[in-house]
């Protein structure tokens, strides 16, 4: 088999951090090659080097067995490399086709944009790989999953033979992930090569031909899929055995802490009903999981619970106290902690350093602030503790958060919210982008908080995560809670059906 990409002895240092340490990797043409590794292992760095976004301190890159110098992304594109970033680089106000062609637009008479050609070519590629995207729809109107396909289309249009996908499934629903895998397999059948990064070992085992495992900037091993298993991969990644365990059941369920009654809300823009009579309660010592397909009102529900979404109707109470009309800050001070869904937009100020982010939202609370003055000593000692306890990989606490790896950014949020929420934790996708060890750790922490008598509301697109942690499960569909069931009395299949809108007779009317 021919080698399409070989990276030899790649080393990359950021200040004191050795992100890649003499990395060797060989990718065969026409295969799906995965890279796995803990948060901060150096996967994204390696891919960025391959795509010309970073430059290795030393090492060589070979494309089709010829040494190349990739000094910027356009050189990478010339060499047939395409990269689909985790954060899409599309222009929302333009159509799909315009985005795809951006920079290489077909012209008529030299000066005029050839719109028919533009749409035609986009349509043709979309058909060829059955991407099912409409060239003429606006990017702002399409879902995350489809946006990702537009990125793939863009790479294909630029004649990419090697596609790099960095955690493509982190933002996708399980259904969307399945669609993506079908597309990836079609690309492979067509002779394209895929480099795929993910923390979900199940996915890795499902689609890869070969897996490279990284740890601390080094390649630990490259194995054939058929010779390995989830457990073996996990061991290689972490360096020890990782138990794929189940969470212990709730011990002592107490009084109602968080209660939502008939919450209804409309979207600001089109006055569409986004929440419709949502009612539930979360008791001390339990985890209420909210299962549902993305975009069924989860975002609005969370925003409503912390006072950011206007309600047309309904009441929220915390320990029996009406908090419906409190301001965000007051809601949070009343005892609600939130792990938001988008870490870069809502969760962190990425241009702040680590310690400044560890007390975001608590900047007026003790011990960080006294009489309006910040106590930087208290901030630093708390930050040191969180870094230690949550194993946040950062050179120091004054390192800018934007320079941390994705998983380590997420750990900062989880650490902050778990440690300062007195009563209720609303966790939205708490383990998005986390490696298996960190995921495990966060799950343990959430269970610990539950057993400390806190109420945990868990929103996740992963049914597995919901099934693992929840005491009870509510299914949300089109802004309505269609059912609330005990975890032990349901199955993933039942839940899956309800998430799609199918209901059961035992659901109260």
């Amino acid at each position, binding site marked *: 088999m021919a080698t399409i990409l070989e990276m030899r002895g790649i080393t990359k240092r950021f200040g004191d951090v050795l992100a890649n340490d003499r990395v060797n990797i060989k990718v065969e043409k026409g295969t799906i090659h995965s890279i796995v590794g803990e948060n901060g292992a150096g996967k994204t760095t390696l891919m960025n080097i391959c795509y010309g*976004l970073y*430059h290795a301190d030393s090492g060589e890159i070979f494309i089709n067995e010829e040494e190349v110098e990739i*000094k910027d992304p356009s050189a990478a594109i010339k060499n047939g490399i395409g990269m689909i970033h985790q954060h899409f680089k599309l222009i929302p106000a333009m159509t799909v086709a315009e985005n795809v062609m951006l920079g290489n637009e077909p012209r008529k008479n030299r000066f005029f944009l050839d719109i028919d050609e533009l749409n035609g070519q986009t349509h043709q590629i979309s058909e060829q790989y059955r991407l099912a995207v409409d060239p003429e729809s606006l990017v702002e109107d399409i879902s995350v999953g489809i946006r990702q396909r537009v990125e793939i289309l863009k790479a294909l249009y630029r004649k990419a033979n090697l596609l790099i996908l960095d955690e493509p499934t982190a933002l996708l629903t399980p259904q969307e992930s399945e669609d993506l895998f079908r597309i990836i397999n079609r690309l492979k059948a067509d002779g394209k090569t895929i480099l795929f990064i993910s923390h979900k070992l199940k996915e890795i085992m499902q689609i890869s031909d070969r897996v490279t495992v990284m740890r601390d900037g080094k390649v630990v091993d490259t194995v054939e899929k058929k010779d390995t298993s989830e457990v073996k991969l996990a061991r290689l990644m972490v360096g020890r055995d990782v138990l794929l365990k189940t969470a212990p059941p709730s011990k002592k369920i107490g009084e109602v802490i968080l209660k939502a009654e008939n919450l209804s809300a409309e979207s600001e823009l089109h006055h569409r009903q986004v929440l419709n009579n949502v009612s539930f309660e979360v008791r001390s010592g339990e985890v209420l999981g909210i299962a549902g397909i993305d975009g069924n009102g989860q975002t609005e529900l969370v925003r409503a619970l912390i006072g950011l979404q206007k309600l047309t109707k309904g009441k929220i109470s915390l320990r029996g106290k009406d908090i419906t009309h409190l*301001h965000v800050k007051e*809601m949070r001070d009343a005892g609600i902690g939130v792990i938001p869904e988008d870490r870069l937009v809502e969760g962190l100020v990425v241009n*702040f350093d680590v310690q400044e982010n560890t007390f975001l939202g608590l*900047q007026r609370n003790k011990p960080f602030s006294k009489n309006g003055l910040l106590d930087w000593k208290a901030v630093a000692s708390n930050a040191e503790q969180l870094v230690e306890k949550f194993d946040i990989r950062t050179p120091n606490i004054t390192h800018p958060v934007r320079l941390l790896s994705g998983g380590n950014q997420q750990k900062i949020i989880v650490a902050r919210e778990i440690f300062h929420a007195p009563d209720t934790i609303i966790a939205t996708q708490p383990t998005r982008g986390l490696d298996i060890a960190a995921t495990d750790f966060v799950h343990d922490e959430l269970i610990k908080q539950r057993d400390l008598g806190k109420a945990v509301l868990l929103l996740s697109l992963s049914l597995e995560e919901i099934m693992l942690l929840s005491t009870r499960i509510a299914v949300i569909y089109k802004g309505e809670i269609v059912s609330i069931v005990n975890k032990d009395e349901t199955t993933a299949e039942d839940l899956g059906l309800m998430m799609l809108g199918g209901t059961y007779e035992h659901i109260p009317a």
Partner: protein
Amino acid sequence: MGKTRKYLEKNQAAFTSILAVLLAFIVVGVLLFSTGRNPIEAFGYFMSGAFGNTYNIANTVSRVIPLLIAAIAFIIGAKCSVFNVGIEGQLLLGALTSAVIGFGLDLPPVAHLPLMLLTGALAGGLYALIPAWLKVYRKVNEILSTIMLNYPAFFFTHYIVLNVTPLEGVIPATPFIKESARFINLFPGTRLHAGIFVTLLVVLFAYFLLQKTSLGYEMRAVGLNKEAARFHGIPVEKRMMLAFFMSGCLAGLAGAVEVAGVHYRYLDQFSPGYGYDSITVAMVGLLNPIGAIFSATLFGALKTGILDMAVFTAIPRQLVTLINGIVVLFVAAKSMIQNGFLRVVKGKQSDAPEKETA
């Protein structure tokens, strides 16, 4: 070697600023040279004009005062995502208001000077509330609105001085302010006055506010990520209004200090564009109150040093404007300079420092 490298890398922003200024000087030098003048000699006159003796230093420092206060005004806004380009107008209104208080009232010095400064600041602050409200509640871009609002301020002060306040003599100006409203002169024969202490207080205030208080932290959070700030319970709109107001107040204060320390009256068109220069000063100072001290000193020196240079080497004074412009250009091209700088420091191609990881 490794250590210096690391140090240079760590403080790349500061070095880039210094580099931008140096490059600007080099370009000006080449310009002088190509018009048949000796740039080394010219630079010598420039330095001695700005810092050659105590008199010159005192004069330079007196130029630093309004620039520095106004630069802090810009910084306080910019840190909270408010780009107040209307400092010039706010400064004029502050100056006029304080002059009116200064000549119109009779008070003991302990009350008169502070009151005068306070009203001047307030005038600037209140005027800034117009673009603040437009931005925060009506989504009007503040860069446009503040630039435009400089004109009404300019013509209003012009009108008041010519038509409302009593004219003494032929120069369009208000009457002189009372002795009780004046800063004492620190160096007879120069323009250096006790306002320098107010200036230092302003710098300290800004530093303290931004670094040491919850409020300042919130303002910086708003400046860097509004969504996250909102999500974490920071009242984004209120903070931006406040930042705009503070920025306007400091701009007004800069005007009032000029009146109380230099002119002792409102002199029509007294400002050579302090409000606009302050933006460059703030930028070169990396939007950092301490950094602004250095850049304000540089720009103050430009104003005094160029005078000597012009006198002794027959260089037109317009060159000041040119140098200013060139520095602005180089500061604007900072990321380019920064990349080049890093390339040299690291000895190879650099990575853009702002890249996010995922």
